[in-house]
């Protein structure tokens, strides 16, 4: 199995660390993984995106143009990556600030109002964990146990007291994802 | 008659009442700087002066490598982008080949004091008739907040994550005091732009620096102590407070050399 994922949004949304947790979770279940961000000064305040691949085989290109899954957190990224989802693939997006919604009818589309959920949890910083939860709900490529392991591994020790908070954000995410269109 | 907001607007907002607006010598491009970064204020002051002094068509500026690498996108005058640290070498040649132009460099502390220390030292020592604007934010902003030669003792950066250890990494380097020692410099000053008062004073100082060049007196050198709120990992408002409370203790503001004479103890 190989899953090729793009996660894209604003700089401050935790896109990169969400990708990192996903990748670490892959490692926890013995998979090969890669995580490739776009980098550079445009990251400052601008957009950020990361390509994450989980696979049972050796991973070839860490940079891709077509994805099994696109996780989209702002309009700019939606405009850029909607067309990059492989037919039959998944597009998960946060509808906040989205003015032009996804239109494709050959892919599965879901949405998650993650900022809302995160602020209900009393901590806007777990925004990205909510998104992650939503994604794992619709595409459980890693088990929840491995995600927790991955989370632990990717957080420095001194933040480990935040693990429960993050875990519950993931759980909340699984609960709040909405189907927009499912083709399967 | 009660003055509603709308009424005030109607009365006051007329072209003839405009007392402050962005100079056309700044382009319309959105500055690439982080919110609250001092680079923006420094850019504006400099370009206002170029406009006010009628130098628009007689200015050649040099951008460094650092956050202000794209200064040429914002400053609406002829500009060159130098290799990291070498702006004074470019300026040397440009001024000697076009003695009638106003030639300035705009450089960060990593650029001017780390990799470019020698070009700074020698251009100032030769007394090149150029103006150096030196933005000291105590850090390498552009590359993600690494330690600069100007980083304060104990200050945390991405390459001094436990604080600058002066025993291992030395003390902050005061390039401004060093160039003030050289006979080639004619006007050397240290300013700041984090409050309106400071910014206005800095503007006066830069004006003087430009005049010194126009009069052919030698090198004029203006350090501007500034914030790098991103690198310092603070909000802009907090960063400016921190600047006031910490940076200025080490980097004392004020003129250091005026009319070719030291006016302050430098050691």
């Amino acid at each position, binding site marked *: 199995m190989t899953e090729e994922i793009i996660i894209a949004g*604003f700089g401050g949304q935790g896109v990169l660390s969400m990708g990192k947790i996903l990748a670490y979770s892959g490692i926890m279940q013995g998979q090969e993984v890669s995580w490739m961000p776009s980098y550079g000064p445009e990251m400052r*305040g601008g957009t950020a995106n990361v390509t994450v691949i989980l696979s049972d085989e050796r991973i070839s290109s860490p940079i891709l143009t077509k994805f099994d899954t696109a996780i989209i957190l702002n309009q700019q990224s939606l405009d850029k990556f909607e067309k990059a989802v492989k037919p039959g693939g998944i597009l998960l997006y946060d509808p906040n*600030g989205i003015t032009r919604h996804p239109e494709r009818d050959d892919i599965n589309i879901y949405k998650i109002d993650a900022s809302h959920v995160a602020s209900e949890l009393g901590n806007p910083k777990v925004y990205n964990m909510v998104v992650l939860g939503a994604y794992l709900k619709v595409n459980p490529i890693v088990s929840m146990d491995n995600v927790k392991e991955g989370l632990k591994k990717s957080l420095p020790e001194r933040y480990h007291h935040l693990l429960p908070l993050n875990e519950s954000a993931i759980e909340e995410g699984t609960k709040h994802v909405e189907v927009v269109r499912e083709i399967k | *008659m009660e*003055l509603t*907001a709308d009424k*005030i*607007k109607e*009365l*006051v*907002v*007329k072209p003839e*009442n*405009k*007392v*402050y*607006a*962005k*100079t056309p010598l*700044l382009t319309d491009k*959105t*500055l690439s*700087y*982080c*919110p*609250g*970064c*001092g*680079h*923006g*204020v420094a850019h*504006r002051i400099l370009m206002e002066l170029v406009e006010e002094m009628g130098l628009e068509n007689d200015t050649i500026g040099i951008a460094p490598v650092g956050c202000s690498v794209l200064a040429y996108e914002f400053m609406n005058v002829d500009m060159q982008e130098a290799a990291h640290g070498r702006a004074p070498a470019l300026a040397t040649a440009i001024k000697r080949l076009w003695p009638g132009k106003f030639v300035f460099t705009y450089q960060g502390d990593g650029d001017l004091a780390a990799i470019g220390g020698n070009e700074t030292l020698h251009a100032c020592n030769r007394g090149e008739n150029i103006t150096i604007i030196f933005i000291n934010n105590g850090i390498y902003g552009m590359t993600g907040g690494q330690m600069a030669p100007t980083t304060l003792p104990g200050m945390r950066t991405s390459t001094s994550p436990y604080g600058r250890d002066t025993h291992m990494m030395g003390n902050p380097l005061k390039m401004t005091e060093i160039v003030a020692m050289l006979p080639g410099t004619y006007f050397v000053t240290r300013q700041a*732009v*984090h*409050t*309106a008062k400071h*910014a*206005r004073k800095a503007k006066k100082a830069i004006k003087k620096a430009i005049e010194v060049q126009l009069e052919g007196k030698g090198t004029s050198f203006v350090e501007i102590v500034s914030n790098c709120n991103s690198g310092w990992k603070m*909000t*802009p*408002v907090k960063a*400016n407070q921190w600047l006031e409370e910490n940076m200025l203790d080490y980097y004392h503001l004020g003129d250091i050399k005026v009319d070719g004479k030291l006016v302050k103890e430098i050691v």
Partner: protein
Amino acid sequence: MAKKVQGYIEIDKEKCKGCELCVVACPKDIIRMSKDVNGKGYHYAEFFNPEPCVGCADCAVVCPDGVITVYRARIEV
């Protein structure tokens, strides 16, 4: 009828990066940050009470992005 120096500022809200430096700089405390965000995702500065404004331009002078325009006039009150 008395004369008064009245100021007024315009903030280009789309260009504002929400740094709050103008808020701190204003001696009259008449700038605040918006609840909404602009197209770049920033809470922008709002000039919420013109009356005390003296048009000192301190706000504009500290604004790194040069998004504030200042007007000043003697008006009759």
